[in-house]
């Protein structure tokens, strides 16, 4: 939950990473899927940094904005499938919030492809791999985000 720290620990310049992708994932489903991906030795791009939340429903839109303003090239949000939420409806709340946030990102000049919301169940290690890989390559196509170097107001 410490976005800047994550960026500092793995700044693109130092590690030779071309991209910074932050994945904000829920503890119960997507994080478990990531764990499972590890167990089954599925690889996903090293540019992705997972940040664990208890629930996607607790992801304040400001965290997403903060990620972008601090130079993230892509923000991936992974939660439980509708109906699976440990807290019943957190994922649905995340969904409507992100829907409402998209025009704001557009106004800020952040292409909508840089933010992806995905449902990944606890058993879907494979889907996590596919989603993160797909998302990273899509973000790579867009190139590094302008905010990374920009002196922001």
């Amino acid at each position, binding site marked *: 939950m410490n976005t800047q720290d994550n960026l500092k620990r793995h700044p693109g310049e130092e590690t030779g990473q071309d991209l910074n992708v932050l994945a904000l994932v829920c503890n119960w489903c997507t994080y478990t899927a990531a764990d499972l991906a590890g167990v089954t030795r599925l690889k996903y791009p090293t540019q992705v940094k997972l940040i664990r939340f208890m629930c996607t429903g607790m992801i304040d839109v400001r965290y997403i*904005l*903060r990620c972008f*303003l601090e130079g993230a090239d892509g923000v991936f949000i992974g939660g439980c499938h509708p109906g699976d939420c440990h807290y019943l*409806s957190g994922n649905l*709340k995340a969904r409507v919030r992100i829907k409402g946030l998209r025009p704001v990102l*557009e106004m800020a000049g952040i292409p909508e492809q840089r933010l992806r919301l995905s449902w990944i169940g606890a058993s879907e290690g494979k889907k996590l791999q596919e989603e993160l890989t797909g998302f990273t390559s899509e973000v790579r196509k867009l190139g590094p985000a*302008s905010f990374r170097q920009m002196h922001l*107001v």
Partner: protein
Amino acid sequence: MHNFTLIKTKGDPGRTVNSLLAGLVEKELVQGVLTLAVGPFSSLPMPSLLCSIEQIKNSSPLAPAAGVSAAVHAARISRGPEKFRTAAVLRPCELRALVELAKLNQARLENLVLISMECPGRLENRRYLELRSEHPDLDVDYYLHPDLQAEASGTCLSCTDFIPEYVHLGICLLGLDLKQEIGISWHQEQGEELARVMEFVSGQESDSRRQAIKELEAARKNAWLNLQEKTAQEISTPEGLQKAIGDCLGCFNCQRACPVCFCRDCVSSREAFEQDPEELYDRGARKGSLRLPTDLTMFHLTRLAHMAHACVGCGQCSSVCPSRIPLADIFRTTGASTQEELGYRPGRSPDEPVPLVRFSEEKDT
């Protein structure tokens, strides 16, 4: 529209409205009136709570000015006990803001008689004063001379929501000879009740009125589309937005003037000024320099993220910005997308739930 009646004006539509408002108090339907009035020491008509018949009769309900949004004050007044019932005369945008505030427990609509008018737009404060020095009868002349209306704020000139929607009594000004008459429409149960007590007789609306509304709608729509396009082109790029807000002082005027921003203490204002020097240095070192006050992009985007769905397009943010940042253009353009995305129209009805806590159980939407 069926619930519509015409009232003779004897040359001054403003006075006609004043009499109507006074009537509400006289008939004890309300205890006071919230409307624009020029006080003994002010030059601008400002929202005022008027309790005496005399003061009400001297108020300026139709003055084409809005120094501040009256919505916030209507909201505040309405939060009292039931014995204080107030007739609030609001512009359509203010009315929408009030409905939004009511949804968030900031206003109690049951304590208000909602009165609004067909709004040709408001003048910026300075322009209002300038024009009034030329036109002493500006509050009446404004409605008679289209060239005066063309002086309205940019936001108003591209506003397509100039007819009040959720309202009890509507003051109809378009397509009428205001020297002769104004129209009154009534809506909702409360409106019906008022019409009954005030003994309004339902009558027909003229074609000329419909025509005038149509024309204004078309002109406004056109202006609005142009504005949206311009904003999208010029602002919604990483550099564009930075340029647009580049001169932001961090005064938070926009947030304070915003009628739908309801927080007691904005999270952004806390954030921008609560950083220790070490952290400022740390951040400065990363990119070589740090613009102060910091985090103003975060502030504006936060405000967009929090309030775009509720933006009623009043334009106060732009009006109060000392750096002339086109905040209203940014907000309205973003708001239009957000509102469409969420299927939400702010101020349409107090029964329409706030979208950010309303979610669909559907699997894929």
